[in-house]
């Protein structure tokens, strides 16, 4: 009978061919699923217009010593702090104190512009905005979980793992700064 002959033949040869077809189909399917999934995952990343807001220019001439200006950059606050000589001295004195994220005061500012400390005003613990001029070191105190930063924005106490982040910036004039 024709059927019997056919069945017999497939036993001899087809299992491997059939396995190949199964594996090839599944592999192609997996690649297809991944190719379709990626756009749906990546759409959640920052959009082109969000990325375009990458740099701002700010006049800081009106910030008196001892004051802080808060500017919004990429949706986040940036602290522009005009430090007093006493604040700078207190910070430099602690350069070799034990710290979680050791950094010298000089590494936190631009050369010759030691009085201007420019940091991203977002606590490195869980993202709250630390309060100006409070806490044990006169720098910042984060109200959410009690992280304490000194006048160089270095983490000194509390749960935050790192110093306040430095944005990339440059002085474009004596009182003009470009952030981003």
């Amino acid at each position, binding site marked *: 009978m024709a059927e019997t002959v056919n069945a017999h033949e497939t036993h001899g040869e087809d299992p491997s061919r059939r396995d190949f077809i199964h594996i090839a189909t599944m592999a192609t399917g997996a690649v297809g699923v991944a190719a379709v999934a990626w756009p749906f995952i990546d759409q*959640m990343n920052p959009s082109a217009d*969000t990325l375009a807001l990458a740099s701002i220019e700010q006049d800081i001439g009106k910030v008196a010593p001892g004051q802080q200006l808060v500017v919004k950059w990429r949706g*986040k606050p940036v602290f522009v702090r005009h430090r007093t000589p006493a604040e700078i001295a207190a910070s430099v004195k602690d350069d070799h104190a034990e710290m979680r994220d050791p950094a010298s005061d000089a590494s936190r500012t631009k050369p010759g512009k030691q009085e201007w400390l420019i940091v991203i005003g977002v606590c490195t613990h*869980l*993202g709250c905005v630390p*309060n100006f001029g409070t806490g044990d070191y006169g720098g910042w105190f984060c*109200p959410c979980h009690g992280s304490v930063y000194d006048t160089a924005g270095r983490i000194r106490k509390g749960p935050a793992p790192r110093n306040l982040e430095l944005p990339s910036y440059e002085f474009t004039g004596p009182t003009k700064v470009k952030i981003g």
Partner: protein
Amino acid sequence: MSGHSKYEPKTGFERWLDVRLPIVRMAYDTAIDFPTPKNLNYWWTFGGILAVCLVIQIVTGVVLAMHYVANGALAFNSVEHIMRDVNHGWMIRYIHANGASMFFLAVYVHIARGLYYGSYKAPREILWLLGCVIYLLMMATAFMGYVLPWGQMSYYGAVVITNLFSAFDNVIPGVGTAITTWLWGGFAVDNATLNRFFSLHFLLPFMIAGVVGLHIWALHVPGNNNPVGVDVKSKEDTVPFHPYYTVKDAFAILVFLLLFSWFVFFAPEALGHADNQVMANPLATPSHIVPEWYFLPFYAILRAVPDKLLGVLGMFGAIAMLFALPWLDTSKVRSMRYRPTARWFFFLFIAATLGLGWCGGKLPDDVVIPIGQDAVTGDATGFTVVMLSRVLAIYYFAYFLVVLPALGLLEKTLPVPETISTPVLPKGGAAMLSGATASPEKKG
């Protein structure tokens, strides 16, 4: 869904429908004729209460979505518009906002019921796990819903919770930042974040409804656990769900709705926070931020750990304990009525969880037990909230990881009745067997 259906179609239409889509049969078997242990107490009514809560949240939520605008510039004002201008908007929003609290109140009672009476033990592990999944989905939904009014608490709640993922920077630098940027759709919580949270806040309740369907399915295979904790042995141990438990549940639901209404109409902002009446400001954090009350115990655990990554792991670990529970509790006796030692550890566990909740609402450096005085400021010093949180958090984990595994092996349990009916029958005590051998057919 288990056993033989006793449904008999009465009308011609029901007979016609029954051979095409036996949906009336399913409803009859599930909610009318379902054999239910006859000794369920009021702690068992919270399942029905939770179903009502879910329906209330979905109905009020869909209505609110008709008036709400998910845009960073407009959201706050659209909520004010709902409160002031939309007909009955204030009531619908207060029902939805307080409904979330009522939902969590009921789910905590429901979970505690399961913990006390051993409802997570074989053969109900899947039922329990599905409940844990519902609880996780509820937390995600509540969190994203709280962000939508776009007040200060909304905003910084979103900031803190999404920043939990930045802890992965401590494992592989950059990974945590990549995750938070992806979650936010930007470099900070902003309009893109609000939009996606609104979309997901709308979706998740329907996913909860789906898992609730599975939860009820998984309930109806082994049937209800009961306060005695022994299996149903005969038909005499059960009563039909209707009218016995439809009426009992309905009564409990009405009492619960009284409490619900009291909050909605007499203290609608009692569980909220004044700072959320201030529009979100990315440049200034309120001086004291706290999550909603139902997250406070986990928040206290997060703050109790001085390391960021470990704090986050501790917080998620506290929930993971619930998932692992069926395999951590080694005792073969379900109900703590017959576990004289375990029940005290259980009550201590409830107290510790409530204590953690209290700690979560306080500032970490607040002094609980004053011992001395600060030499400079004169402020009291001593045992602080964060220290108390540590003690309580250690007990929270020890309950799951040490107490329950060890007690199952060490504890001398009381004699467990042979059947549900035994304790209430005359001379019932004569039929009792010792706890360890009461139901040798059960495997723990």
